[in-house]
Structures are given as C-alpha cells and as structure tokens.
C-alpha cells in the first residue's frame, strides 16, 4: 500500500469513533489518513463491551443520536458486506434486545417513568410483570418487582466493527497507520489547519479530526485548542464459556442512574450478556481515577455481587478474565462533535463516554455531513464544541 503524503482529512485515533468518521468521510469521496499512536482499535474500543443501547438513555440529544445510530448500524454492516465481503463485515451484530430489571418497588417507579418518556419519543419499551420477565429470561432472579423490555437494544463486537470500517477506508484509497503519534498541528497564514505533525514529519491536509477518545483532551492541548474530555474508568468480568444462561442484555434499573451520574466514587451495577463464544460479560464499573490502571479487587467484587444478584445461577461459574478501559467523558456527559471555533479545519469527535460503540456510525455521519455542508440528520447544536462544559475559555 502506498503511503499517503497529503490527505483531504487526517483522522487522529483509530478507535471506533475515528473509524466511523473515516468511514463516513471516505464514503463522501475524501482521501483519508487515519493515524493511531498504538495499534488500531487497541484503545478504549478494545477495553469495553459492545452494547448498542437505547434503553439507558433518557429523551434528549444523546437518545436522538443513539436512535439514528441504531438505525444506521445494520445498514452500514450491510453496505460493508456488499463492499468488502462477509468475512470482513462479520461484526457479531445481534439485535437481541435488552431487559432492564427493577429489584424492588423503589426502583420500579423511576424505571416506569423513564420507559414512559422513552415511549413518548418513539422508543419501543414494553412493561413486564416479574413473571413475564422470567419467562423471557428463565435464569433471572425471582427477586424482582418488574422489568421493561427494549427490543431495540443490540450488541456487536467493537474491535471487529472498528476494523471493518477501517478496512473500508483502505479499500477506498485511504490509509490507516498504526504506531504513529500526532503531536500537533500546523496552520496556514490565515490560521487554518494545513497539516498534522507526526514525529518529525508534517502531513499536509485540509482538515483534522481529533478522535483520540479519552486522550482527546491531551491532543487538544497539543493542538492549541483545549477541550475538556476526561477518563472514567470501567472494568468488565468475563466468565468461562457457558451453555445458554443469559439471552438478552440484562441489567438492573439502577444502572441508568449510574450512567447519568457525575460521581467520582465507584459505582457498580452489572450489565450481564452472553457473547458469540458463550462467555458471559459482566460490566461495568464507573470510577474517576484518572488514567490509573491498577487493579482494584473491590471493583471486581462489586461487579460479581451485582451479577449474582441478577442471575443466582452464575454463582458457581468461573471468571476467566477481567479487562477494562477509560471512557472518554465530558462534564455534561454529551459527546463533542463538530468544528473547533478557534481553528478552521480542526474538528473534534470524542467524549462518547460509555456509549461510543453504539453512537459511532451516527457520529461519523454527522461529522461528515457537517464537513461536507450537507443537511445533518441529527441536530448538531447540543454536541457543538463551543459549549461551556467543553471549552475551558467559554466557561469563565
């Protein structure tokens, strides 16, 4: 493959968000170079799960983006299959639906209210009695007050999905370059982005996308246009492969509260799901500890407890593995997607926190729409860069 010397767009970061942006941009005919300082799809995207969820989002801009993304995923996979073949387009997509469980009456109230609000904006959410819930998930604990079924929730394997989109970028004449760190930008006389500094080299380009995930804040500083993106640590447990125990994605209603909260302290509420190989994934914790990777047994313990509480049969099942990553979050818990007001040609696509896998294709498309001057499908206003939560200078 030839090395690109100049590109229309350089995407920095080959995680699922960078991959989705590059896919959408190359589909719009742009020549795209994607660089990653590590292995492509080896960052947060390889350290999380692959839930594509509507259920955990209250009506608002993130749910709008999620709905657009949920619609887009199967179309995108289909078009990748047509373009690249079955093998590359294999991303373990499973539209299996989700089940949110309220362990007691106290949890049932807020869950019903959320489901009602979601229905009002068109999300399919079916209230279930404990008996109906257990009929769907026979191994579920008997100790529940009720549940809501979300047929729209789905799952895929994030690294397969990201690498499939990157393969499409290459097939369209773009390039993906691993082990290549972007160190800063160069500008033309008018202050417009003219290139990216990569080591001692400068790659000329018309636009740059900062898709550095939890490190997007770092890169924005190096680029001279700081935005506020911070890491929120999460851990996942993986069991040994099991015969079928868990059908859908099943999680406790308090998960929604944990997702939306800004607490520094550890929060754990399990999302339990099976994967294509029969292992059960138990995720995930939320904790603000910077980029500290040290193992904390207490976190694993609490994950184990909440999983066994949902599925008592899992008690005797061995855990083979644990892994984790750092979710990129912004102080107002909304992604940043758009052009930086300080430098024309600098774009950001980051801050997707615990939903980047689900939100990737709509993010890529929104960014491409904005860059190409097309009418966006999703209202970009709430994701703009110059909002107080994201741009330090605006905040005052």
């Amino acid at each position, binding site marked *: 493959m030839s090395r690109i010397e100049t590109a229309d767009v350089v995407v920095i970061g080959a995680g699922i968000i960078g991959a989705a942006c590059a896919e959408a941009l190359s589909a719009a005919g742009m020549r795209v170079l994607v660089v990653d300082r*590590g*292995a*492509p*799809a*080896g960052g947060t995207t*390889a*350290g999380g799960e692959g839930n594509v969820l509507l259920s955990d989002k209250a009506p608002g801009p993130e749910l709008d983006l999620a709905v657009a993304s949920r619609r887009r995923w199967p179309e995108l996979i289909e078009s990748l299959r047509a373009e690249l073949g079955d*093998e*590359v387009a294999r991303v373990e997509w499973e539209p299996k639906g989700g089940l949110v469980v309220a362990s007691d009456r106290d949890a049932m109230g807020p869950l019903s209210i959320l489901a009602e609000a979601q229905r009002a904006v068109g999300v399919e959410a079916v209230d279930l009695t404990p008996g109906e819930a257990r009929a769907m998930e026979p191994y579920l604990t008997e100790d529940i007050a009720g549940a809501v079924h979300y047929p729209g929730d789905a799952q895929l*394997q*994030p*690294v*397969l999905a990201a*690498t*499939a989109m*990157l*393969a499409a970028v*290459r097939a369209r004449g773009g390039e*993906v370059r*691993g*082990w290549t760190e972007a160190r800063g930008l160069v500008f033309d006389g008018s202050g417009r982005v003219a290139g990216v500094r990569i080591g001692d080299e400068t790659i000329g380009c018309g636009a740059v996308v900062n898709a550095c995930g939890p490190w997007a804040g770092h890169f924005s500083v190096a680029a001279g246009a700081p935005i506020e993106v911070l890491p929120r640590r999460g851990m996942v*447990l993986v*069991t*040994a*492969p099991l015969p079928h125990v868990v059908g859908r994605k099943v999680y406790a209603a308090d998960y929604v509260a944990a997702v939306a909260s800004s607490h520094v302290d550890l929060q754990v509420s399990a999302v339990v799901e099976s994967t294509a*190989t029969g*292992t059960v994934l*138990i995720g995930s914790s939320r904790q603000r500890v910077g980029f500290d990777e*040290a*193992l*904390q*047994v207490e976190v*694993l*313990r609490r994950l*184990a*407890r909440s*999983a*066994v509480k949902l599925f008592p049969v*899992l*008690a*005797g*099942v*061995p*855990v*083979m*593995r*644990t*892994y984790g990553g750092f979710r990129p979050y912004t102080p107002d818990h909304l992604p940043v997607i758009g052009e930086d007001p300080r430098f024309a040609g600098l774009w950001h696509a980051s801050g997707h926190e615990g939903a980047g896998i689900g939100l990737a294709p709509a993010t890529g498309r929104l960014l491409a729409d904005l860059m190409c001057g097309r009418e966006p499908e999703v209202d970009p206003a709430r994701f703009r860069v110059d909002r107080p939560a994201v741009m330090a200078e605006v905040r005052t």
Partner: protein
Amino acid sequence: MRRIVVIGAGPAGMAAASAAALHGVEVVLVDAGAKLGGQYFRQDALAPGDRFKLPSNVEHVANAAVWAIEPVDGGHRVHLRVGPADGPARRGRAVEARALVLATGAYDRALPFPGWDLPGVYTAGAAQALAKGQGVAVGDRVVVGGTGPFLLPVAASLIGVGARVVEVAEANAAVTGWLVNPVGALAGWSKSGELVRHAGTLARHRVPYRSRTAVIEAHGSECVESVTVARLDALWNPVPGSERRLEADAVTVGFGFTPQLELALAARCRVEDGFVVVDAAQGTSAPGVFAAGELTGIGGADLAASEGTVAGAAAAKFVGAAVEPPVRAMARVRSGRRFAAALNAAYPVRSGWHDWLRDDTIVCRCEEVTKRALFRAVDERDVGGVRSLKLVSGAGLGLCQGRVCGRNVAELVGVDGTGFAKRPIASPIRLAELAEEEPVETPVDAEESGRALGVEY
C-alpha cells in the same frame, strides 16, 4: 516482626523463604501445589510427610492459588483462595506485605503441528508430571519430541512407568564444545546424578536419539495412531524426502519454557524479551518486588535456588532486617547465568516450525482458531497489537487465556507476545468466591510502611 510474601514454592521460592526467615522475617510462602518443591522437585501429593523442611517462621500455605495482586499503600495485597482447586470450599485470604518475592516458575512450551490437537499429544511437562506424580504413562509407544536436555528425563520417566519410547527427536543440532552431549548438558543443568542415570536408562533401552529431527505431524482419527518425523535444516524447515512414519499412540512435545508472568505483570515489573528484568539483588523495576527462578530466565533448578537465596535476603533487607549481601549465592547466580545463556543459545526455537502448520492446523486450541483464520484476521483487519489481535481472531481468549497459544500466535504474526500474559485474574475464580469479602491480614509493622527504597549491594 516484619512480613514478606513469597509466591511459588519451587526451588526459587523455597530458597527465598529460607533466606528471609534466617534474618528473622516472618514469611508467608504460597503455592498452588499440595506440597513444597515446585515443578522439578514435584512430590507425590498423596504420600505422607514432606521431603522439605523450612524454618518455623515460614508459614507454608499449600493448595493456595494467588488470583490477584493489588497495589496498596506501601506494598501489595496478595489475594488467595485456599483449598483444592476444583473443590467447593476454597477459603479466601488476603495477605498484605511490604515486600514480595515472585517465584512462579515457567511451564513448558508446545509448538503446534498438524494433528497436535488429537488426544494422545501431551506437553512434555504434563507427561512428566503424570509419570512422576501418579505413576501413569501417557501411552504404550511414545515419541518424545522438542528441544533441550529436558527431553531426556521425560523419556526416562516414561520408560520408568513402563512405556516404550519409540524415538527422542531433538530439533536442534547436536551441541558442540563443553555442552557436548545431552548428558553433559543435563549435568550442568542440575547437579543431580539421577539425571545422568536416566540417560543411561535410555541407552540401555536402545532408544534412538536423533538430532535435527522433529515430529511434524500426528495422524489418527480419534487419537494418535502414528506420527511423521522429519529431518530439519538449520532453520527447522523439514528436509524434503526425509519424512518417516512411526507408529505411536502418544507424543510428548517440549520446546523450552514460558515464564509464568501474570503476577509479575500485575505487580508492574518490567519485562524484556519475555522475562522479568532484575538487578543484582533480584529486585524488579517495581519497588519491593523481587523475582527469582525461571521468571527471570531459564536455567534449571540450581540457578533458581541461588536466585531465590539472593531475592529472599534482599526482600528481608527491604523490610528492614540487617542483611549482609549473600555473596556466595550471588556468585553462583552469575556463573549459573553464564551456563544458562550457553544452554539457551544451544537450544533455540527456529522459525521453520511456522511451515509445519497447514492452513487448517489449529493454532489456538481453546477457541479452535486455525492458521488460516488467524492470518485472515490479521491481513484483512490489519491489527497490530495483542489486544486487538485477540479480539479479532479469538486466539488466546479461551480457557487457557493464551498460556498455550500466546507465544506461538505472537511469533507467527510477528507481534510482541507479552500482552498475552496480561492476566489480572491470574487463576480462575468463581463469581461467588469473588463476591465474598476476604479477611485482610495487614503487615504487623504497617505503621512504618511507605518505605520505597531499593536494595543495593
């Protein structure tokens, strides 16, 4: 009293525990096995008594799997489950210590070849353990393949339990110079005359020992019925036309050793070329963490024990005991390492094995990943790191967590394999066990913790 924790009760761990105890330090010596001794001195688990005796201030915790190491202020917390691995009643324990000695050893490496996933193919270590521990032979007619002096005791043990060893296939050339014959090499590896006697056993039983030869395929429908051996060139490519078919119902393979790195990685010790990096005091890059034995390099039981003595003394010094440098053990370590380097240079693993595989040969047994699927994943998805490689190919994601396939897959694909050894959960733990609170034993001198000095001689 000051406490250190030693993990692994092989030659290295036992020596470390003794050396530290000698300096008045309280030692908790943890091992997954039922008895002291580790791999080489493996004892019959069911026989009464123990061959080894340690000082009274060493608490030997047997049948104890360390499943996690967690950094805490001024040291580490070692999490164990105590009790038979598959039993229902393992107890949790968490022991804190300011200094750790890691002596978790190594396990033997199997290279894949067509048919290696058939029943009847064993790692040399497994065959040896069955023979030594339970008096069981893995087959009636056994071919012993691989490389290194270690093939001989395996063959001898098999003969000892009544198997017929059809052939010993050594993939490297016959060594020259002072390592001239495998018996000599063994004599250097361990002072034990027992090994030399084993080699005599092979000669008496007229077992052919062929160098530059390897088992490149195993055949059979349900289990191994025969194998193909071939001559190898210097890079381990089979010499065309040299193939021979041998009847056998079992094969053992051993291509050197892979250190058991997960706890060292969990404690954030620096690893280079697959081994933990240590200084002259066996100190790792992590303050208060020392490593000894096969973790730091493959060099046999005597070198492991000498390193253990040095590490135990340094750990005792680290927690405040008055310790003179153990100069004699340090000298033995230096000469042992020279010998080990020569030995390892004489028995390398050459890349020709990559071509023993066919497209449909399984490279990861747990997830049944073939060579074709592995390369497809790499080529079509262009992944460059272990984390993404595992997730796109499935290799290393199964029950063994890459212990068997990790190094082989990394070598085939051309990435650094250390990532396969990142296993923050070092041995499987049931969800209910994980959910349980464990009593935490803090160091007796916890108040004076926080000392982060290295040990220098």
